[in-house]
């Protein structure tokens, strides 16, 4: 479920994808929102009590109306003012967006929240939860009818590519023929695996790191015969780094 994503093709012919939130994450966000609604209800009661001089009848009326407004309006208000996020969604890193990648419209926010009345049936969002599990885009009924999806928000920073490549001279780059063959025989996908391995090397266990770079070095060696004098004394990781350097930067000796 967690691997689902929404692919959108722009009129310019570019495809981008938005990672969809799974039912479990959404359920946790809902629990947080439930707590927020309970807290706001208590707060509204306390606020009403401050108007003590207004009379018991008016105070009771205000308490009923405010409690109702909090219950039914919480989702609408927060999702509109926080651009598709309730407190729970913000905490869990989720956001409601238009299913076609456009801006969330006020009418979509209202309708998806009112349709909770259907999704919540018969108890504990059973209908909505089932729809969420069965839907290709993890949508509850409210999402399906309002044309919205809930995605996982992400703000990936630009990777530090300069730090990945060796500062010292690249021995492989001195061999023009080898450099050309590396660029010719290693596919972009295989090159990307090497680049990703370098970018994430600090996140790997020591054993996994050694095994990964050994496998990559073996693969690169199998594609191109590397001159012994250039790779002599290099660890597998250094070799991968130099190959990737040649591939991505056209490294000079």
């Amino acid at each position, binding site marked *: 479920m967690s691997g689902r994503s929404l692919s959108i093709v722009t009129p310019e012919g570019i495809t*981008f994808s938005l990672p969809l939130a799974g039912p479990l994450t959404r359920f946790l966000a809902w629990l947080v929102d439930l707590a927020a609604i309970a807290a706001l209800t208590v707060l509204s009661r306390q606020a009403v009590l401050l108007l003590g001089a207004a009379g018991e009848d008016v105070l009771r009326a205000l308490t009923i*109306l405010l409690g109702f407004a909090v219950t039914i309006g919480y989702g609408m208000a927060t999702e*509109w003012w926080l651009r598709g996020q309730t407190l729970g969604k913000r905490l869990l890193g989720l956001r409601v967006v238009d299913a076609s990648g456009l801006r969330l419209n006020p009418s979509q926010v209202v309708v998806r929240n009112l349709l909770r009345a259907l999704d919540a049936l018969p108890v504990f969002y059973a209908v909505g939860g089932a729809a969420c599990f069965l839907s290709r885009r993890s949508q509850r009924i409210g999402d399906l009818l309002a044309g919205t999806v809930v995605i996982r928000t992400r703000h*990936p920073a630009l990777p530090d590519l300069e730090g990945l490549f060796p500062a010292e001279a690249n021995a492989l780059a001195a061999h023009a023929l080898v450099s050309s063959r590396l660029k010719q025989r290693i596919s972009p996908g295989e090159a990307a695996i090497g680049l990703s391995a370098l970018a994430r090397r600090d996140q790997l266990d020591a054993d996994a790191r050694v095994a990964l770079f050994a496998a990559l070095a073996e693969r690169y060696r199998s594609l191109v015969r590397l001159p012994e004098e250039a790779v002599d004394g290099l660890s597998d990781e250094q070799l991968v780094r130099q190959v990737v350097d040649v591939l991505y930067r056209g490294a000079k000796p």
Partner: protein
Amino acid sequence: MILDLPRFVASARPRWTELERLLSALEAEPDAERDLAFLTRLHFLYERAAADLGKVRTFASEPELVRHLEALVARAYAEVHETRDRRSRLSLRSLAGIVLRDAPRAVRRHPGALLLATLLTVAGMAFGALALGVDPATKRVLVPFEHLSGDPAERVRLEEGGETRHADGHRAAFSSTLVTHNVRVAVLAFALGGTAGAGTAVLLFHNGVVLGAVALDYVRAGQTRFLLGWLLPHGTVEIPAFLLAGQAGLILGASLFRRSSRSPLSARLRSVLPDLVAILALVVALLAWAAIVESYLSQHHEPTLPYGLKAAFGLLEGSLLAAFLLRAGREREEP
């Protein structure tokens, strides 16, 4: 071919940073007027970022960079390609516009759904009255409300004798309870439209059954004047409000399976959403009014208030509501 990634990123990074800055400004102030230079630049930067994404994905496949650019292009796409109303500020004026202008237009745009909602309710009323007429013992099933389960004549005697002033001293709380309960029922009537309208139809029919059974019960007991004086002041607003909520549910249901339409489901739903919201906003306003009337007027009976006067008030309200739904917003309506 593999892209010289560091050089590519170094040359494109200023553009991406500028695009992020423009998007943040747009997101922070979505209602602000933007000049042509700003929009042209935004569009240019979006197209360049989209092209950069395509290039990186094809020639470099660096996952983190791809994700970064995807997130950037997704944000820009939402701003550049959105053609719907961008207004985001909610004000009393915009709310009044929705209720007083957009809602009656929306109601008039879908006469079939309103007619069907009315017919379902009327059919329910006929069924309720018929069932009670044939077998009075069904009253407990048809009208499962404690305050309506007794003998109508006895209730009228108590009400007119001033022995059941149950709302005295807490009329505001009573009307709040009424409005919250009625809005919940109206929202349910709308939301059940998600069952292709079947749930809405059942709810409307059921409302009609209760109404029909209650009406016949009072008429048979010779309490027609009391019934009219009690129901009309708030009923002429409350019942149409439920019909409108039902209309919204039926519109929603119809857009799910309108096979004659060439539009895809998502486009059909998208086109009716503003109408649904406008109708529901009007429903809430009507139910709030009906609850106030029910609490402060409907609960007063003869000799305090003549039934004729109460019924006349109800008929006046109904006429005004009908005129409003037929005429309001018409002068600006597109031909």
